[in-house]
């Protein structure tokens, strides 16, 4: 038995069959329940865990159709919708689909279930709740007739609306149908008419899928579960070849793919694959999947194996059709081919090393050296052009953090003569500078960066020709009385 704490003390939120048999009901105060039954096992309810479990179940159900939508709070949060339009015939019709679903729910999860198929989500919901048979398939167009005998609870209304209707003597849904709509619209929240219209299909009810439905999807059920990585990769490659036909027909290529591995015990492993150029190359994708699976724990805990494998294109982008033989002669064919090979290389590297490890330099309009550029993961977009090189001294290597150093200078705001960095003393034989880099005052005014002192940068060279980039922080007299020195970069 699960309890929820609310106004007036803890109440029963959910119970099992034994508790029901003992005469308990949901919504009763816990104190009453204790009086009625002797041995109660009481646990606080955990909505987050319920939600996660329902999500997992809905994810599992994507093996039937890509659109699985777990019920939210207003639907009771204890089931999910499956949009089986166009998917039922793959299982031999709606009845066999329901039979398969109930068999698997029983076998994998040990869950009792009530299933219904109808033309609208509202009717399906009502039938699954209130129809005497646990497995219902409603023929098309009979929603009104099927709903009529059901109690008004079947309309998914707020408790206040329900109570008001009952007070007025409306006990079943049918009594609402043949009344004029205007008085209802005036007296009740808009929800009432909306729910009726949704149940009868006069109003659309959008479903929020548990995962975004893919654009292209290919799924294969296996008679014998597979365990090895090679088998998964081989199967994925075959699925991709099936998808390729559709992709080619629509002149698109995949930019992102999701491989779903349905385990025998009901868990679903998903592998997401991103590509930097749209592709239809099955071999390339199989290779990426192989690399990804190598680093993934999915293969290690395959359990009793995977009974179904699905491959879905979650992002597609147009690819102009090309004729390989003809364009090979053309002048620009080499470039296109090179670009494609480069994208394939970047995909491979990203897949094995992680998307954050393949990066590109991007210039940022800033005077402060450490803010003047950023490393961005390569994502397929062409890089922003860099400005033409300026006549400024910039080091080849920039230290991650400027390191404090001891400096001897002839005059306080002159160039350094000697400095000690990382325990080694360097005699300065030549220097260039200073280059004064002031802080970005416009950022200070916005208030999201603390004011930093002005820096005077020097390029200094020691007797052996090593060149360093040093700066003195703070202007004498105005900003500081004892300036500090830092090493910020290396030239050679």
């Amino acid at each position: 038995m699960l309890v929820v704490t609310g106004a007036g003390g803890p109440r029963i939120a959910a119970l099992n069959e034994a508790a029901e048999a003992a005469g308990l009901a949901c919504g009763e105060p816990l104190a009453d329940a204790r009086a009625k039954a002797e041995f109660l096992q009481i646990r606080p309810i955990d909505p987050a865990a319920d939600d996660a479990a329902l999500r997992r179940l809905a994810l599992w159900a994507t093996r039937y159709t890509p659109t699985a939508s777990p019920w939210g709070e207003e639907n009771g949060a204890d089931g999910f919708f499956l949009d089986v339009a166009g998917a039922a015939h793959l299982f031999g019709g709606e009845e066999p689909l329901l039979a398969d679903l109930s068999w698997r729910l029983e076998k994998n999860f040990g869950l009792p279930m009530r299933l219904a198929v109808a033309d609208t989500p509202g009717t399906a919901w009502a039938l699954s709740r209130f129809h005497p048979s646990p497995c219902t398939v409603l023929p098309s167009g009979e929603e009104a007739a099927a709903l009529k005998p059901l109690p008004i609870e079947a309309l998914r209304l707020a408790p206040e609306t329900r109570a008001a209707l009952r007070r007025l003597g409306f006990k079943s849904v049918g009594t609402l149908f043949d009344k004029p709509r205007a008085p209802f619209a005036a007296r009740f929240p808009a929800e009432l008419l909306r729910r009726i219209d949704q149940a009868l299909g006069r109003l659309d009810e959008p479903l929020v899928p548990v995962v975004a439905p893919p654009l292209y999807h290919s799924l294969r059920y296996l008679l014998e579960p597979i365990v090895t990585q090679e088998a998964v990769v081989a199967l994925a490659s075959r699925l991709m070849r099936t998808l390729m036909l559709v992709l080619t027909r629509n002149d698109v290529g995949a930019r992102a793919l999701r491989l779903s591995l349905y385990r025998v015990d009901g868990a679903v492993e998903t592998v997401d694959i991103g590509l930097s150029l749209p592709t239809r190359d099955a071999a390339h994708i199989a290779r990426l999947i192989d690399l990804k699976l190598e680093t993934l724990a999915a293969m290690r805990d395959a359990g009793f194996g995977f009974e179904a494998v699905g491959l879905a294109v979650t992002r597609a982008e147009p690819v102009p059709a090309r004729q390989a033989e003809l364009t090979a002669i053309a002048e620009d064919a080499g470039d296109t081919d090179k670009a494609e090979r480069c994208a394939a290389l970047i995909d491979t590297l990203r897949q094995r090393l992680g998307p954050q490890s393949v990066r590109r330099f991007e210039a940022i309009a800033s005077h402060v050296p450490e803010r003047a550029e950023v490393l961005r993961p390569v994502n397929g977009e062409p890089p922003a052009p860099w400005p033409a090189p300026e006549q400024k001294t910039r080091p080849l290597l920039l230290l991650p953090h400027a390191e404090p150093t001891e400096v001897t200078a002839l005059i306080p705001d002159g160039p350094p003569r000697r400095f000690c960095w990382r325990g080694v003393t360097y005699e300065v034989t030549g220097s260039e500078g200073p280059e004064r880099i002031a802080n970005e005052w416009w950022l200070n005014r916005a208030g999201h960066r603390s004011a930093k002192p002005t820096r005077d940068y020097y390029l200094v060279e020691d007797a052996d020709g090593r060149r360093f980039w040093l700066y003195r922080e703070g202007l004498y007299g105005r900003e500081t009385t004892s300036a500090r020195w830092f090493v910020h970069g290396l030239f050679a």
Partner: protein
Amino acid sequence: MQSTAPQGEREPTNRRPLILVMPAYGLRAYGRPYGHGLNALGLDPGRLILVETTHRHETLWALEEALHSGAPAAVAGIIDKLDLRLSQRLQLAATDAGLPLFLLRQAQFLESSAAATRWRIAPARAARDRFGLLARARWHLNLERCRNGRVGEWMVEYDHVAHRFSLAAALADPALPRRASERAFGKIRRA
């Protein structure tokens, strides 16, 4: 620094990327490559793709992968230890792909390898202008190993105005001491 250049001629490359594979720990003590600094030396940082690895195996794998794809204009890698067998493997991959492969290594890690050439690059004192200020950065190149070629030493300098490296015109520089200039000149002639 070692370079494993293929025997074949290099095709002109304009916008193909350069791949630099470096371990995440490799250059930590010396920071990371700085785009504006590379830009100042004439290398467009927009072309450079930085690949960071966490292990030496990954570095080797990424280098081979980049070479096999044949897509980049050149591949460079920073690697600490490399035995002869692995270097042969990389050399073979570079030759097959017809791409230049540069292995950038710190001087203390040098062991024998199958690379076609080995350059030792050291900083050198910059050229001074007539006021005694730093004018042009210089490097001292030492070609220690060269298959089918002669080894030699050079002094190169970078001209910021013309954006090119050139052999240091040592004699034209009045600020350098005479002995040093003679030595530099002699090396150029020997090469």
